[in-house]
């Protein structure tokens, strides 16, 4: 596999402008004749499908949910970053670029990150024009708050439901195009295979989840906007249906997979309370604007939190990172929490949590102000735990959340497989080894609204004379047959264990060996254990029902089968990276005081894995990271 990131020439701030000035266009008459498949209808997918349809392309949009509006972007709480400098606090595109690059521990491309910051302001304009009701000041202008890893206020928000409101904006734009006949919508459809012809993506095989029938869909290009694979840990902040199947099947068809082990464990989630549990709900990072994190100064202190006097509390983030305090980036906050919990200072019935305390903020601003800022989060906390966080501190714990890794893409967001694009969380591009809060919504929107519409046209302009390929082409027949075979295989095992039980076992294994902390020995063991679990899965799985009907268990089984393969690649990637960077913390590589030890001399590259077949280890290809504008420094939040 050869990788060319296709970074435009020129100074950082001019690259995107130069690209747009030079990229090829498709005429209106030709756009009408070209079709694009967009898989996923979250922020990236809906934004892309709507924008491409507005331009005149014929779009087919797919989602496994029963409506595009339910994609998991909907659950993002805290906000979206943009370098508007409305607060007059010295913000600009360069500063945002630097914060993001540094937050990612200098493991992302300068040009991509700068473009993200550069396009951020335009996104706020776009969302407001759609009618997204962002929070406003009394004068009527837009309000901002802070998020982790930065010292300016650049986060725009809509109470604790920013993702929902942005998604409903994109969904409304998509709905308008559906009404105009520019988008054909396929809800309750799951992509099960990518179809390639002569090494180029030309369509997909999808399963209609209501009838169970397999369908062939052909197009001039395929866009994956299928989100992250954090649900691989089973207990996570993600939705039950979130999966890595689309990108995994694309990987097996030849698309490179970048940095699979860069997965983010979010510091502020609800702790696990029992083995039946299906998810760990996120409590927005925005809470760290006003909440203070602490544990008792004495280990195994059993007193209720309100009875522990101030002098006997350890505000460990403020102690260790005085400059950023409770707003230290996620990877650092999660590690610090795990360090305290593992050392015996954890609180709660399972001793697996830390306190997030609002008493000071309530005293300072009043309960009303806190209610307006975070009311829905406090309410959600009470619903799930039965506790009132206005009266006692919240109990929080780290949980799997975001995947920085994903399909490798070049500057044009095209994977290493021509004609296959990946946007939003399912690609690896902008966040390096750790994503900053409120940059996820931003990246998904910017990829979908502003970048892909330019870059996909540049690709399609070269496809005008390409031979027409329809769903009757033999490549579609072969792909459909392989999907049917796999579905049949899953159903025919008829063993003893459900897909869910394998998923839970895999998740527990990954939390233990490839979570917040990783070690050589642990990862080597994990690779063996995953392989054994996978073998058992194919021997002893039990899937009830049939293919040609509604069958949630069959859907789950297919996703878990893919997770069992992806998990091994995650561990291989974590094992190969003998350094600590961002969310990837190798116990062997830390400084004397327990901070991450990055090894730029050996690992300043993006690891990209290339599939070599079922019984051959994948090949590792390196994309060197060149820093022309900044020089990587040791991340310091003290």
């Amino acid at each position: 596999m050869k990788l060319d990131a296709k970074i435009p020439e020129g100074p950082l701030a001019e690259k995107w402008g130069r690209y747009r000035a030079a990229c090829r266009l498709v005429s209106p008459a030709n756009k009408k004749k070209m079709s694009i498949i967009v898989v996923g209808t979250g922020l990236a997918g809906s934004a892309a499908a709507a924008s491409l349809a507005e331009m005149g392309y014929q779009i087919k949009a797919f989602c496994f949910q029963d409506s595009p509006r339910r994609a998991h972007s909907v659950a993002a709480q805290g906000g979206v970053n943009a370098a508007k400098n409305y607060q007059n606090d010295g913000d600009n595109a360069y500063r945002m670029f630097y914060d993001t690059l540094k937050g990612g521990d200098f493991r992302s491309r300068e040009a991509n990150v700068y473009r993200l910051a550069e396009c951020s302001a335009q996104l706020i304009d776009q969302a407001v024009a759609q009618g997204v009701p962002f929070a406003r000041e009394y004068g009527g202008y837009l309000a901002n708050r802070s998020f982790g890893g930065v010292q300016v206020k650049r986060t725009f928000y809509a109470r604790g439901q920013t993702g929902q409101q942005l998604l409903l904006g994109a969904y409304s734009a998509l709905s308008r195009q559906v009404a105009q006949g520019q988008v054909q919508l396929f809800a309750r459809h799951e992509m099960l295979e990518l179809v390639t012809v002569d090494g180029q993506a030309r369509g997909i095989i999808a399963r209609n989840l209501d009838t169970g029938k397999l369908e062939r869909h052909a197009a001039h290009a395929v866009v994956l906007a299928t989100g992250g694979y954090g649900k691989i840990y089973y207990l996570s902040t993600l939705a039950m249906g979130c999966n890595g199947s689309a990108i995994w099947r694309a990987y097996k068809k030849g698309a490179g997979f970048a940095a699979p082990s860069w997965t983010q464990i979010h510091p502020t989630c609800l702790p696990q309370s029992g083995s039946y549990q299906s998810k760990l709900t996120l409590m927005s990072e925005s809470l760290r604007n006003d909440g203070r994190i602490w544990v008792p100064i004495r280990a195994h202190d059993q007193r209720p939190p309100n009875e522990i006097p101030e002098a006997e509390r350890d505000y460990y983030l403020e102690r260790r990172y005085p400059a950023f305090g409770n707003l230290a980036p996620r990877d650092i906050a999660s590690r610090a929490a795990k360090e305290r919990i593992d050392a015996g200072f954890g609180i709660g019935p399972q001793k697996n949590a830390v306190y997030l305390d609002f008493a000071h903020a309530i005293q300072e601003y009043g309960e009303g102000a806190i209610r307006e800022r975070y009311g829905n989060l406090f309410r959600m906390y009470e619903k799930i735990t039965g506790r009132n966080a206005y009266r006692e501190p919240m109990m929080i714990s780290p949980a799997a959340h975001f995947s920085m890794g994903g399909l490798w893409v070049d500057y044009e967001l095209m994977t290493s497989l021509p004609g296959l694009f990946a946007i939003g969380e399912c690609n690896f591009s902008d966040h390096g080894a750790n994503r900053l809060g409120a940059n996820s919504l931003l990246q998904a929107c910017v990829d979908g609204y502003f970048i892909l519409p330019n870059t996909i046209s540049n690709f399609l302009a070269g496809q005008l004379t390409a031979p027409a390929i329809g769903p009757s082409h033999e490549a579609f027949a072969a792909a459909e047959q392989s999907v049917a075979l796999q579905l049949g295989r899953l159903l025919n095992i008829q063993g003893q264990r459900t897909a869910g039980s394998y998923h839970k076992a895999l998740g527990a294994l990954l939390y233990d060996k490839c979570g917040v902390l990783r070690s050589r020995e642990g990862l080597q063991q994990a690779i063996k254990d995953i392989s054994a679990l996978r073998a058992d899965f194919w021997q002893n799985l039990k899937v009830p029902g049939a293919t040609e009907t509604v069958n949630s268990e069959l859907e789950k089984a297919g996703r878990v089968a893919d997770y069992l393969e992806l998990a091994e690649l995650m561990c291989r990637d974590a094992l190969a990276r003998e350094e600590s960077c961002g969310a990837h913390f190798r116990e062997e590589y830390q400084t004397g005081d327990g901070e991450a030890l990055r090894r730029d001399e050996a690992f300043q590259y993006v690891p990209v894995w290339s599939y070599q077949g079922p019984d051959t280890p994948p090949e590792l290809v390196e994309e060197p990271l060149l820093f022309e504008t900044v020089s990587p420094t040791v991340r310091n939040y003290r």
Partner: protein
Amino acid sequence: MKITLYIWRQDNAQAKGNMEKHALNGLNPDMSFLEMLDVLNEQIITAGGDPVEFDHDCREGICGQCGLFINGRAHGPLAATTTCQLHLRHFKDGDTIYVEPFRAAAFPVVKDLRIDRSAFDRIIQAGGYVSARTGDAPEANALPVPHRTAEQAFDAAACIGCGACVATCKNASAALFTAAKVSHLAMLPQGQPEREHRAQAMSAQMDEEGFGHCTQTGACEVECPQEISIAHIARMNYEFNRGAILKP
């Protein structure tokens, strides 16, 4: 905890359904209602049976995909709570619980507790948007929106599209769902240019989908997990009449 469940089973939209009894033991009061159904399905599958299909995804009350009629109430006994946020601590040990899908002619059953709510998507497609193309947008702060207006618009925009309003309404009316979108966009300056057309078009689609009319019983507001007020229905009616007079 011990719970006896009567669950609606139905093969498809055409099939005749029935209630099926299941007994569950050893449940934890901190378990969510849907986690109880996970446990039930695990039990059914292990015993060689056909698991219960139900809608769910985010399990944090925001995607709007879950929705069960529990003991005769949409999303169960709690106010302002989706099914996924309902926990067993709100039931008593030994309780018998009746679980049914959201029922409405416009929401056909797909299987068991799973329903088809694509009618809601078509209502939005009829006009629940601002026609702002990508690239059209002016500077976001060019048009100030008073804090209060933005907050009121948000109250309406918070709708998660779950359909509890329809399920609980004796007329199976989608008035609250439709009004939430009409009202959200009518209050904001961005929604003004298409205001006259929007309420008319969305109401017409609502009728076409087979939803009933609103007779102002207020049941929808009681069950709405996002606490959307029926004042928005009043605003929709105003917008509808205004649109009829000031035809675009």
